[in-house]
């Protein structure tokens, strides 16, 4: 599955390791929340980065203490109509200050890229090659945003107020 990271098609360095399967000696691994929480220290001690796949119905409180030691957090979209992970993403970025890789996994289409980026995702396991190829172009689709989120894009309301301010200052 193509991985888009920071706007580019990238090779995925992380190996998805199923529950019960043996961990490779080194190299980056992605494990489930259950496996991770069963013994976080053992996983974090090994050579190689660790990422966690966090289900969209699991409370983030259990994840938060480990955030600064994780190389990636993968949030799940079982279908693209299930939007719970958008809230998790914003909470991780905006409330808990997570600044590592935030990966969207599951049924990911190009039509979600803008929403996901605005919610804080910066890596995408994209379902279709054509969508992955269209990433940069799709991200240019919108230039106006009504809501403030942690991505820092200036909202329409703020742009208007800035404009008004500069107009009145110029008089």
């Amino acid at each position, binding site marked *: 599955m193509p991985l888009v990271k920071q706007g580019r098609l990238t090779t995925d360095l992380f190996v998805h390791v199923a529950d019960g399967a043996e961990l490779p000696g080194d190299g980056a691994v992605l494990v489930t929340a259950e496996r991770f929480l069963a013994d976080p220290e053992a996983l974090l001690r090994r050579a190689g980065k660790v990422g966690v796949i966090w289900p969209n119905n699991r409370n983030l409180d259990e994840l938060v203490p480990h955030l600064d030691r994780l190389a990636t957090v993968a949030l799940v979209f079982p279908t693209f109509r299930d939007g719970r992970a958008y809230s*998790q993403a914003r909470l991780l970025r905006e409330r808990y200050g997570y600044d590592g890789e935030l990966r969207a996994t599951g049924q990911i289409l190009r039509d979600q890229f803008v929403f996901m980026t605005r919610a804080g995702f910066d890596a995408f396991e994209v379902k279709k090659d054509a969508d992955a190829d269209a990433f940069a172009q799709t991200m240019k689709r919108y230039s106006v945003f*009504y*809501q403030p989120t942690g991505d820092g894009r200036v909202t329409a309301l703020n742009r208007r107020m800035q404009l008004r301010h500069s107009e009145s200052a110029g008089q």
Partner: protein
Amino acid sequence: MYAYDELDRTLINERVSEFRDQVKRRLSGELTEDEFKILRLQNGVYLQLHAYMFRVAIPYGTLSSKQLRRLAHVARRYDRGYGHFTTRQNIQFNWIKLAELPDALADLAEVGIHAMQTSGNNMRNVTSDQWAGVAPGEIEDPRIWSELIRQHTTLHPEFSFLPRKFKIAITAAEHDRAAIKIHDIGLRLHKNADGETGFEVLVGGGLGRTPFIAKTIKPFVSGRDILSYIEAILRVYNQYGRRDNIYKARIKILVHELGIEKFAKEVEEEWKAMGDVGLTLDHAAIEEVRSRFSYPAYEKLPHMPDELKQAAHDPLFERWRKNSVSAHKVQGYSIVTLSLKPVGGPPGDATAEQMDAVADLADKYSFGEIRVGHEQNLALPHVAKRDLPQLFKALDRLGLATPNVNLVTDIIACPGLDYCSLANARSIPIAQELTRRFANHDTADLIGRLHINISGCINACGHHHVGHIGILGVEKNGEEFYQITIGGRADENAQLGTLIGPAVPYAEVADVIEDIVEAYLALRDRPEELFVDTVKRLGVEPIRERVYATR
């Protein structure tokens, strides 16, 4: 009127080009129907029994004459020459071709109209009082807040894939014309003891399979905090709303399962934890949006002009005036409701010719402004009283002066089995038959205010639960049957109706309704006692006895 600026225009044009790409990918097979379904629903496109149906937003029910003419153009160019106004300040076109949809959207975008989030599991069109800004005694114009919320909820990056659809309605008047208590969030503008403007916030209302009247979650949220408070409600709902069963996915079920106190506590905690996330609306931000609304330059006119005194001799004019003309906050002006409920017609339909003509009349008599109400009628919100006689003649010629506003033939009905793929039974022919039964305007006047609401299935698009008389189509052994409730209402005293007896077959519905009305006329205390008040005073039983005694 809210005037779009360059930013609003840019955004809807960007949305049109995104949708054009989505349609192209569907037509080329790149998107499966399953994938495309969610995407088209985000933009108001349903697949109905015969064709695609296209639902266009009329935010808080305000239209300019230019916009209405463009809706007429879409009806003519892309559809079969008419449109259907819905109970949520939208208009639907029933015969659109998928390949032409992007062009229809582009035509609408030129006049600042869109179809964003008119269906799908997202935040729907924000609705309000159709008399907003002109009704006497309002706290302030609720459309300022409606527009702030419209912008905030449009293409929201966190809440565009909710468990289920989510509807917000706002009122600023004592009498609730926006039906806020049957919305996911209902907002009532009022002032607190310190004179500050804010909102009573209600949550968890809704009809459908499991109807609930909304409950108050917070008696006062300051205007400056309203966006962050709504955001907190939505975040709790997005995470905890049920996704295992679409019939249990609305916020009303979450509120019901947790209980309003527990739900309110969750929201309060989330709201407190949010801190300052840039959602606080300071004075300048509110004024920025307020400044984009323009108001007519009203003249100083007499309360009772000569034209009105003279026209009072015309009984047809007087009947219409008493029925369809309402008080305006400015002396010398009136609000005029245009009935889209002619005898024998489908409720809420308007032809392209009617839309064009109403746009012309709005230019001539109403400062170019038109309103759309949830009862599926139109209104001209700023008519000088001296112009009422001329306006009446023009409306009468167009078939838009039926003097039945709020009367027994002012029926709310969903499209039903004639169009809708979800329906179990027909709605429109029932409405048409009832308008014929009660076609005599003297009889209708005698009966007084009486709202009949008809839905063709349990999804309740026709709001049957809150009709004074509610009619619900069901299917029994392959035949259309109808359950009838009485005593419901959708206003500030909102209440669900009570079933009056066993379901009746299609052919008997109009007879039963006539019998219910007969029973009411016999039982009412005095002529001024409304149907719904008689039911409240006596309960269902005395009416049931009379109606079902001979059945």
